[in-house]
């Protein structure tokens, strides 16, 4: 059985896998940044007293969580052009991942914000900070610290979800595997290789999360310039 497994073909296709990997990395990074932005805004809306903000935020989060990502992606890719918005597939892909992941991240951030003691908000208010200022300086830095583990989980999901973009012909990592599988009829080689690359990305993300929690954590002494 293993004699049929062609390492040589994998090596031959490595440049293609490399390009796919790079595309997956940067489009996931962009999507995650977008998702964080979407998530912070939705979480902030969801925590307002006014229904005017809360109802649309909740409706959006429910809609995204209740429907398959593939359906959302197809809606943006095939549906939007019918409504007059023609966007390149990469933009559609990043948009879909940001909007989808943002709904999950909104709930993570909302829980994180609720975990910050009320006194922190009051300290910011009492010193004359506006809502935006105390979110930026006081609340969110603390929220990100406690939410790093769940955000890491969401980042991993996002990287894996980006495989769906192969279906709208974005040449990312999974697309490279598909090409090897269809060009040479070597699905085992193709998909095992991309699996290895996804595993690699997973460990990179874990390392990054560890670094950032140490960066945001308490350091014994730091010179403040």
């Amino acid at each position, binding site marked *: 059985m293993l004699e049929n497994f062609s390492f040589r073909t994998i090596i031959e296709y490595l440049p293609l896998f490399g390009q796919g990997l790079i595309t997956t990395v940067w489009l996931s990074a962009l999507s995650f940044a977008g998702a964080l932005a979407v998530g912070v805004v939705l979480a902030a809306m969801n925590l307002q007293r006014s229904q005017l903000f809360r109802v649309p935020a909740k409706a959006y989060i429910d809609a995204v969580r209740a429907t398959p990502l593939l359906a959302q992606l197809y809606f943006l890719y095939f549906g939007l052009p019918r409504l007059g918005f023609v966007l390149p597939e990469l933009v559609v892909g990043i948009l879909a991942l940001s909007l989808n992941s943002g709904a999950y991240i909104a709930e993570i951030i909302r829980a994180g914000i609720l975990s910050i*003691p009320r*006194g*922190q908000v*009051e*300290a910011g*208010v*009492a*010193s*004359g*900070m*506006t809502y935006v*200022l105390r979110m930026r*300086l*006081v609340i969110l*830095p*603390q929220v990100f*610290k406690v939410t790093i583990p769940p955000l890491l989980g969401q980042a991993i999901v996002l990287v894996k979800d980006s495989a769906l973009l192969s279906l709208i012909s974005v040449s990312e990592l999974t697309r490279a595997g598909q090409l090897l599988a269809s060009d040479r009829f070597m699905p085992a080689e193709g998909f095992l290789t991309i699996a290895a690359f996804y595993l690699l990305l997973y460990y990179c993300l874990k390392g990054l999360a560890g670094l950032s929690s140490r960066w*945001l954590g*308490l*350091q*014994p*002494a*730091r*010179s*403040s310039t």
Partner: protein
Amino acid sequence: MSTPSQAKTGMIDFRGVNKWFGPLNVLKDITLSVEPREVVVVCGPSGSGKSTLIRCINGLETIKDGDLIVDGQRLGDPATNMTLLRTEIGFVFQSFNLYPHKTALENVTLAPIHVRKIPRAEAEQAGRDLLAKVGLADKVNAYPSQLSGGQQQRVAIARCLGMRPKIMLFDEPTSALDPEMISEVLDVMVAVAEEGMTMMVVTHEMGFARKVAQRVVFMDAGAIVESGTPEAFFSAPKTDRSRAFLSKILRH
């Protein structure tokens, strides 16, 4: 000391203020005027509304009716910029509420830099000076978790002073402290008072009241029951409720 009157506006002026939490009337018809540079100690049993009283002054609580005028500005008036007014009012919390992700110095300089727009270098110099003033020159780069309760509360006081406020409010500043740390915080508060700060202090520290307060206000069940100089209040309380309260806190 000048006598507060209805006609004259003090630094803090409560005029017939009422507040409810649901059906509970937590502030009952409060009329109280605090002059510039005056130090007023507010005491009373737990749940008497004393914390709520001072939390109204910087708008952490809103009032239902009556007028509350702070530094010449009426709270709740559309013309009053509450955010701006708060920069003039320092508030020291019972539980310190320092920012745990910031060093002592960063805690002190955060609002001056971002709210007051003071240049960073200048704010940091002022912050170092303030931390030295509260006896924490060696803790400039320490995080709150590395400080004792008394040290944290002194940083919190320095954080307020960094904004150069006109008024300082203290909400039971020593209640969360171990006994041996209380005096280090009170000493700082005495120093602030002696520099002429307008202060309202919710506390049961009667030594502090005797030393720096011009007036003690005794509250019970949401109303001001008695108000007078510390000597008069402690040696000859006028009401049964204040006598009962004093006998409880002075016994031990």
